[in-house]
């Protein structure tokens, strides 16, 4: 356990003393603030329109999510963050093993009294903390809403809580899990090559294909349609991002993560046996 933490700590130090993590934090703050403002404007516009039209009964079911800040602003923001993570996580994961090989520091790890499993878990954990922090950046927006927003009950006009925190936290958890999943794929790809750029691009390409499945699925024939639809990245995330917690996505994503960590372990071990 001490070895895992030592390696995780080293990874975190490297991320935070080089531009890697800071570029990601900056990029994520920039993009998410852009979307946040956009969503707020849309939300406000919708509420003004409704006042003129005379009530929510007139509004189509598709637009009902705009009734409150949680469903109208925070959750759509988290949905866009899924795509943002697709860009930044491969950027973070690419260096985990590739850089180690390029700098010839891998020999140090491999000749120290640590097991391959400890190396893989330590590196993964270090990356995971940085990804948690990256997702954490977007928690600023719910906090801003909670501080400055207000909400009234439609029936009694009494003041109610601005946000449904349980839903918000579930969405946050879903984002971290999604980040953790891409990270596990990226860690594996990084263990295969010496080039950080190649590792990043391949990870990104794999995740992109995963996202495109959603578009391909409706055009495929059964039984492929069901299979593709089930595997599409956001099929599993739709529920948690609506505030519904069920077991299926947890099982799905933890199996993907476990599979890729085992593959990474095999890949690191195989380096010993060339």
């Amino acid at each position, binding site marked *: 356990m*001490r*070895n895992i933490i*030592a390696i995780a700590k080293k990874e975190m130090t*490297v991320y935070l003393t*080089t531009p890697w993590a800071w570029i990601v934090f900056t990029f994520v703050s920039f993009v998410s603030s852009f979307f946040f403002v956009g969503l707020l404007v849309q939300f406000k516009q919708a509420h003004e329109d409704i006042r003129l039209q005379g009530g929510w009964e007139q509004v189509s079911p598709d637009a009902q999510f705009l009734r409150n800040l949680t469903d109208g602003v925070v959750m759509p923001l988290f949905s866009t963050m899924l795509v943002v993570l697709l860009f930044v996580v491969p950027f973070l994961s690419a260096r985990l093993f590739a850089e180690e090989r390029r700098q010839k520091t891998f020999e140090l790890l491999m*000749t120290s*009294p640590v097991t391959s499993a400890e190396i893989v878990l330590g590196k993964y954990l270090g990356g995971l903390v940085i990804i948690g922090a990256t997702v954490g950046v977007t928690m600023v927006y719910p906090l801003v809403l909670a501080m400055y927003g207000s909400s009234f009950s439609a029936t009694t006009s009494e003041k109610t809580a601005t946000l449904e925190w349980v839903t918000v936290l579930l969405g946050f958890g879903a984002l971290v899990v999604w980040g953790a999943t891409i990270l596990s794929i990226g860690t594996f790809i990084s263990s295969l090559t010496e080039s950080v750029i190649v590792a990043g691009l391949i990870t990104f390409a794999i995740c992109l294909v995963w996202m495109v499945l959603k578009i391909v699925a409706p055009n495929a024939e059964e039984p492929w349609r069901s299979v593709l639809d089930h595997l599409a990245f956001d099929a599993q995330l739709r529920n948690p991002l609506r505030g519904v917690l069920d077991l299926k996505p947890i099982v799905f994503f933890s199996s993907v993560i476990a599979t890729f960590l085992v593959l990474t372990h095999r890949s690191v071990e195989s380096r*010993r046996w060339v």
Partner: protein
Amino acid sequence: MAMIEVERLTKKYRDRVAIDALSFTIGEGKIVGFLGPNGAGKSTTMKILTGFMPATEGKARVAGFDVFEKPLEAKRQIGYLPETPPLYPELTVRGFLHFVAEIKGVPRKQVKSEIDRVAQGTGVTTELDRLNSALSKGYRQRVGIAQALIGNPKLLILDEPTEGLDPRQRNEVLQLIKGLAGQHTVVLSTHILAEVKTICEQVLIIHRGKIVADDTMAAISGGKENGLEEKFISLTAN
């Protein structure tokens, strides 16, 4: 007691035989020169001994631990400086040595004093708070040796520790290694014979993956001034 016991160690890279049925023993507390022309199999042998890669055939034991069957125990006995010092450029020297101490299992309370000890021994105390990437070649090499000394391992394996240093740095590093005799067994790989003459007691010469000489310094040089050079050239002629 023998620190290193190697029996019929063979490594093949596909069809190419890098080392061919090597057998030798190295006693405790010795400084041993591991010589050979470039590409003779020196680094391969060291990488097998340190558990970085496995052998195709044969056995190797370090301080009594089989490096294939008990890799973690064997690795705990070894401090290893690879050909390129494995320094993380993003870390400070102190941060780097701290990391090495942790993964080598130095007890938490002793980590600080251990860093000071190896830094003092290798003369990098003044550089502890600089980034590895800012170090000169000579200091990189020293930090590489400091890293190998952490945890006070019984066996030090140094792969070309003086490569790329200027004559003064070279001399300093050699004196440093010489000072380690007695407390550690040192295996030193190099193709610079003058270095071996200054500090080694035992010499192993390897050529095309085979041991061609294994004897004490005195016996190999035959008491002559350039006896080692002559022997080396005649043994590695073809």
